[in-house]
């Protein structure tokens, strides 16, 4: 790096940055403020008229807590399984990054491009009690009727939704965390192996701290998606309990405007949950940020 790096932002730089920050951050913030205001019963933002009745109405409705725990269960289980899967696969591929690893990544990348709605529909076609796997099972003579097939989608445990999240988010986590510092990490893993570190210890002390700066934020995004997404739960879920996201959309689209306030109250409750979970995740993983081989930790651009 021979060129002198500018350390201060010019006015033109600020303008350049604002071109992306205003539409994304600005609109998100505006949406957030509007959501909060609506849930508090205000048409315009007038904080003097804060009214918590939408929240109390929602929380005291029968079935609210069941839906809440169900949503949380799906989000936690989906995120945890996806995290473990992505960490193990990523670790294995980094250790011997070769053609086959790259090939697999490319295939998974295809899955990343498939719309959530399509993927959910496809999972129903394959896994429902009269889906393709059930038909193969019947063809093999193992079952006679669909009701003998285990319930994997549209089930009360949310297995279908969890499976959807895992199959869609493992590729996301891999692609989000691996590629940029893959080669660097491979070298470190090789060094650690030469020094006699067990695979387990390589995973814990080299790989995880190495990917954490990208992996942990991606994990928070996965949790947020799992908790607040509509399509997977709408297609793969059950009538009861429904996830809060599905209920929120239904209420939002109801002609009754009072339900709209409550829909935003649900969205705000989801947001608070994500904030708590995100903070907890950062806290739990803080040793990866502070310890480990700092030389390889940087995910953010380090220069050519």
């Amino acid at each position, binding site marked *: 790096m021979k060129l002198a790096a500018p350390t201060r932002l010019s006015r033109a730089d600020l303008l350049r940055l604002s071109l992306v920050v205003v539409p994304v951050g600005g609109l998100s913030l505006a949406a957030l403020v509007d959501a909060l205001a609506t849930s508090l019963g205000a048409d315009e933002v007038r904080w003097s008229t804060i009214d918590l009745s939408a929240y109390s109405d929602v929380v005291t*409705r*029968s*079935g*609210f807590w*069941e*839906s809440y725990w169900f949503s949380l269960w799906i989000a936690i289980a989906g995120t945890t399984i996806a995290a473990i899967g992505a960490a193990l696969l990523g670790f294995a591929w980094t250790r011997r990054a070769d053609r086959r690893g790259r090939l697999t990544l490319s295939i998974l990348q295809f899955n990343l491009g498939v719309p959530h709605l399509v993927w959910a529909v496809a999972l129903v076609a394959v896994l429902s*009690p*009269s889906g393709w796997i059930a038909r193969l099972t019947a063809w093999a003579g193992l079952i006679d*009727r*669909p*009701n003998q097939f285990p*319930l994997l989608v*549209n*089930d*009360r445990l949310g297995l279908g939704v969890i499976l959807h999240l895992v199959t869609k988010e493992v590729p996301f986590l891999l692609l989000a965390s691996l590629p940029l510092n893959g080669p660097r990490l491979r070298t470190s893993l090789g060094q650690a192996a030469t020094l006699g570190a067990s695979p387990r210890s390589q995973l814990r002390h080299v790989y995880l701290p190495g990917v954490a700066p990208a992996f942990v934020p991606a994990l928070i995004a996965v949790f947020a998606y799992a908790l607040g997404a509509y399509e997977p739960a709408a297609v793969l879920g*059950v*009538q*009861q*309990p*429904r996830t809060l996201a599905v*209920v929120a959309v*239904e209420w939002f*689209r*109801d*002609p009754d405007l009072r339900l709209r306030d409550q829909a935003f109250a649900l969205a705000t409750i989801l947001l608070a949950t994500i904030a708590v979970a995100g903070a907890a995740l950062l806290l739990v993983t803080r040793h990866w940020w502070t310890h480990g081989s700092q030389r390889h930790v940087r995910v953010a651009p380090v220069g050519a």
Partner: protein
Amino acid sequence: MGVGPSVLDPKDWEGVLVAARGQSVNWYLWGGSESINRFVDDTYGPALKDRYGVTLRRVPIADTVDAVNQLLAEDRAGTADGAVDMIWINGENFSTLRTAGLLYDGWARTLPNASLVNWDNPAVASDFGTDVGSMESPWSSAQFQLVYDTERTAETDLPRSYAALLDWACANTGRFTYIAPGPGGFQGTRFVKGALFELSGGAEQWQTFDQTLWDKWAPRLWDYLEQLRPCLWRSGKTYPKDESELHRLFANDEVDFTITQAAVGAGALIADGLVPDTAKAFVFDTNSIGDFNYVAIPANATNKAAAMVVANLLLAPEMQARQIVPANGFGLGYAIDPNRVTDPTARQLLTDAAAQLGPAATDPTDLAASLVGDAAAAYQDLVETGWRQALLGGL
């Protein structure tokens, strides 16, 4: 706001036709059935273009409530030239829009073909207990029926009442279910209302809203459904959320009955490839709820004249004849009263079409014998939220 006369008089039909020429109609209708979509595009589209110079733009929606929301949003925003020109509608959605004063009035009964409609029939003139006035023009009629597979179930074994259904279901555990009442589960609501009618001894008393009547019978209704529950598919722990899911369960041998409301019975479902071709419709001896469905024009519609032309075309005898033939894929019944059709050629068309209902249809005599009107619109919400709380206990 565009060309044409600023004041449109529905009574001046020639004027309407002139104003309609060159307009496009944004018709919002439920788009879930490919065969209905095709029927609308292929049957009305070319006729409108050729005869009236009107372009039909079908806007498919997942639920009619989306169109209602659109209108409510436009109303709040004060939009004068709205996006919606016509909606396929009935029941609660109609009553919401009517109450909000968002519908164009004074046109439906003055359409030339409105003379073929029997407006004296309360089932036509009142939509779920709400007076349709001159705000809705009928399109077709529907009646609640069950569908079975002649390969799997013998006709003599079919249940013919809700009481018999309970026995049948518990003798064949897991082989029956119904659609969860609620948004998208309109037919499930109708199934539950039929049970309410049978338990309470008749449909008549439910035509007008009476809270005490509801309070009296609701517990017994939930009682009956609770008794049915353990015998249902997946022990009644979950229910199919819409028609399509129930059709899928039926077609794939998970349950033995599905639900339809088409005049052609299972015919349209067979033509659409949704169920096996051995499927056939039947009804209970009584309490099979029938009604009409309509098109309405919003008060802020941009192309009212063209929308009226479409509504009038829907009632033309040749189009009515085409809509009940199973192969055409629409399959709902007549909106007009065939006896009012005087033109002999048109009459012949209707008679011929009725003869083509096919083997998958319910016997018309059975249908007529079991027909009852729907309950007042106010019961809709009570049934839906009440059911959700009593049977599912959830949000």
